[in-house]
């Protein structure tokens, strides 16, 4: 099989995980940067609307590498979707499909269900919950916790930090509670 054909297939965890792990030494060695992504949200606040809040009064320009990094992630998402798209059907666990069908999800063709992520949902209650409310929790929660999956789960655990282990466990507990307990109630609203 040609290499490009192989690259276009979904990458298994044992390829993707180590590549993500290698981001840690790559950033450390090319510029003494600790891996973390949610901090970019803070830098955007500091750069665009600091509003005299002490939490946003710092030299964000010194941290501008972080913004270059997330713009890169966006560009990488574009390139992978445009040029390396998976030619085969997207595979999801049958059990997950069954559970989500029960909640009312009907579209299982792409990476994101159109039932939720279609543009016309932006101004609906669905959009309010899945984009506005969910996004707010992500931004507020990661900053309060001092990091996200990259800063705590990957960088923090790589450097054997107990606080990061605690934070990571809390991320997982929050996710389990939302998906297993709260989502069925949320889907009843539509």
């Amino acid at each position, binding site marked *: 099989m040609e290499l490009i054909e192989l690259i276009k297939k979904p990458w298994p965890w044992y390829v993707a995980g180590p590549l993500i792990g290698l981001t840690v030494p790559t950033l450390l060695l090319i510029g003494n940067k600790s891996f973390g992504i949610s901090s970019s949200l803070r830098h955007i606040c500091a750069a665009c609307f600091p509003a005299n809040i002490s939490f946003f009064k710092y030299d964000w320009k010194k941290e501008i590498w972080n913004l270059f990094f997330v713009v890169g992630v966006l560009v990488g*998402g574009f390139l992978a979707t445009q040029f390396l798209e998976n030619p085969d059907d997207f595979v999801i666990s049958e059990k997950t499909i069954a559970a989500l069908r029960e909640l009312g999800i009907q579209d299982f063709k792409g990476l994101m269900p159109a039932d939720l992520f279609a543009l016309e949902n932006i101004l609906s209650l669905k959009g309010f919950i899945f984009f506005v409310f969910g996004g707010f929790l992500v931004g507020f929660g990661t900053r309060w916790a001092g990091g996200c999956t990259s800063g705590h789960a990957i960088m923090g*655990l790589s450097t054997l930090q107990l606080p990061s282990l605690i934070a990571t466990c809390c991320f997982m507990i929050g996710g389990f509670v939302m998906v297993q307990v709260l989502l069925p109630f949320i889907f009843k609203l539509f």
Partner: protein
Amino acid sequence: MATNQTNTNTVSFPEHLVCDAPNDMVKRESTLGNLKYLVVGVMFGIVFVKAEIISWFRIQEMFRLHSFHMYGVIGSAVVVGMISVFLIKKFNIKTLAGETVQFHPKKFMRGQIYGGLLFGLGWGITGACPGPLFAQIGSGYVAVIVTLLSAIAGTWTYGLLKDRLPN
């Protein structure tokens, strides 16, 4: 000029070390120099899409324990990260600029519990942590721009309320 810049950098940022992704490079980098982080970001974004980590469905599978994929990704990333950090420390490997690699011990704060739980709830709804948000937008899921803006608003609100929250 170099000394000037170092001075302005070291004064008045007591919050600095709280930042989860600090820049510890002493030397200032040019815009051109910063492009290397963009390149690393591009590689990272490609991995996110190709391993389908940006998929809302993959996050659903993870929190329903219906698939090992996400656990494998995060687990093997942590193992590779740990080994790398161990080797950097053991052999005192220097950065490209010849500096010693800096690590920051994190302090335990109650925010890691409260904030962590809130982020987890948001992760379960949006199907994205901050990194995948950017990759989803790049992949053409335009509606996620709203999620990103709201995450920025959430971060801003935390900054506003910080002193009134248990940290």
